[in-house]
Structures are given as structure tokens and as C-alpha cells.
């Protein structure tokens, strides 16, 4: 049975308009930047820094759109709103955990995609 993919790169491919270099650049940046952003989010939670969480959620939102992580689109928007209105720490924590799990899975999938693009580039 095929497992459901977290990412959907169709929008990114549409933007790339056939450029594998664009795809590689975008995927590489997401893989490089996302773990640090998630770490910052967790550190902000530990400090009860809700404005920091709000800022990080706001910043990550467009990247989720590029990588087609549709399952987390609403979650990250809700997290931003929760942080803004000062929701309970458990509510915030639960969303951060879900986002982190989704991003970790997305990064695994993106690494596979990146390898495909690198292989096809080396063939040229």
C-alpha cells in the first residue's frame, strides 16, 4: 500500500517552468532552513515567547505553500492566531509538535526529490 505523501511539488514545478535548477535551489533552501526555524519555535515555546512563535509561524507559512504541505496549511495559520491571542501552552505545543513531525517527514521526501533532480542534472 502506498503511503500518502506529505509534499506536493506541483505548484513549485509550475513556478519552475521546467527549470530543474530552480527546483533544486528551492528544495535545498527548505531542507537547510526549516530545522533551525522549528528549533527557534520550540525555544520560543520554552520561554513562553508567544510573539516569537507567531513570527516564526508567519514566516514559515509561504514555504509550506511552495512545498505543497497542504495538511499543515491550516495548522500553521491556527498556530499564528493561537500565539497572537495567547492560547494555552498545551494548545500551542500540540500544534508545534504536529508541524515538526510534518516538516521532518517532508524533509525526508524532499531529500529523495532532490536526489532525483541531482541525478538528472548529472546525466546532462
Amino acid at each position, binding site marked *: 500500500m502506498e503511503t500518502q505523501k506529505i509534499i506536493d511539488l506541483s*505548484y513549485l514545478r509550475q*513556478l519552475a*517552468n521546467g*527549470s530543474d535548477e*530552480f527546483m533544486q*535551489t*528551492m528544495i535545498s*533552501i*527548505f531542507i537547510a*532552513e526549516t530545522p533551525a526555524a522549528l528549533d527557534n519555535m520550540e525555544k520560543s515555546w520554552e520561554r513562553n515567547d508567544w510573539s516569537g512563535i507567531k*513570527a516564526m509561524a*508567519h*514566516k514559515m*507559512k*509561504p*514555504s509550506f*505553500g*511552495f512545498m505543497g504541505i497542504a495538511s499543515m496549511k491550516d495548522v500553521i495559520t491556527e498556530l499564528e492566531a493561537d500565539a497572537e491571542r495567547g492560547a494555552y501552552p498545551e494548545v500551542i505545543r500540540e500544534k508545534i509538535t504536529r508541524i515538526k513531525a510534518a516538516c521532518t517527514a517532508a524533509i525526508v521526501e524532499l531529500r529523495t526529490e532532490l536526489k532525483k533532480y541531482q541525478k538528472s542534472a548529472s546525466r546532462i
Partner: protein
Amino acid sequence: MKQNEDVTRVFIVDDDPVFSKALETYLKKEVPNVEVASFSNGESSLHELHRSPDLLLLDYRLDSEFAYAWDGLQILKKINNIDPGLSVVVMSAKESVDTAMNCIKMGAMEYVVKNEQAFPKIKGIVSELKQEIKEEKEEEELEEKSNMPAWLGLLLLLILLIFFLYRL
């Protein structure tokens, strides 16, 4: 003074490297004769305004490693003081009519929500601006040309006057 007058120079000011790089690569690919420079904070973009950008794409919510970094609106105010003619588009992941209105009131030419339509919309803005610049340039050239006979007439008159005075 720009080295190549046909090039449209765009500054992207955004602390999100994924969005910033994507937009830079997209614009370079989709819009002909465009030069794009990206800045992760507003302060560094202000230092480079002497390079005369035609358009500045400014993130509304700017975080920075600097403790007292300015956000998008503060940068917009600074730009209004330094170069009031510069076209600024404010970009934000937040879809808010109030924020958009506020940005327009403060002098932004447009407010773009960072969603799936953002890139094509920004491409449209850059293309329109490029066309406007081209038309302005053509108008200026036409004006210069239409002024030529007046200058020539004046010159002829001057030559005749010198000739007449010389004969006297």
C-alpha cells in the same frame, strides 16, 4: 546612474530565505532584463538605495539579527524620506484589509499577500512598471526631438545676428 538603462532593478527585502530566493529566481527567469538584489533586513537595503532600484518588494514583518531592527512599515517610512519616488510593494503572509489599507496610506503602491497567486501578481507589477518606464523614456525622447527645431531656430537666429553685427 544606471549602467544599463533598459534593465529594471528590483530589490527584495525579506528575512525568509525560502521566499526571497524563490522570488528572485522566478523574476530573473520570467521577466526579461531584470536585475534582482535580495536583502535579509531593511537596514542593508537602505544602504544600497544609491543603486537606484525601480521597485522595492518589502516584507511587512521583518525580523532580524539586529536587536533594534526596523519592521516593514518603519522601512517604508525611511524610504519615503530618502527616495519618495521609489515604487514599493509590501508583501505579507497575512491577508488583512486593514494592514493593506495602512500600507497604501503610507505610500506603498500595492499590498501583495504571500499566497499561491503572489508570484504571478508580482511578475505583473514588475512587467507593468517596466512598460511604464519604457513609455516615460520614449516620451522624454520624443519631447527632446520635438524641442530640436526650437533649438536649431535659436542657433540660426544667433548666427544671423552675429553675421549682421559683423557686417555693420
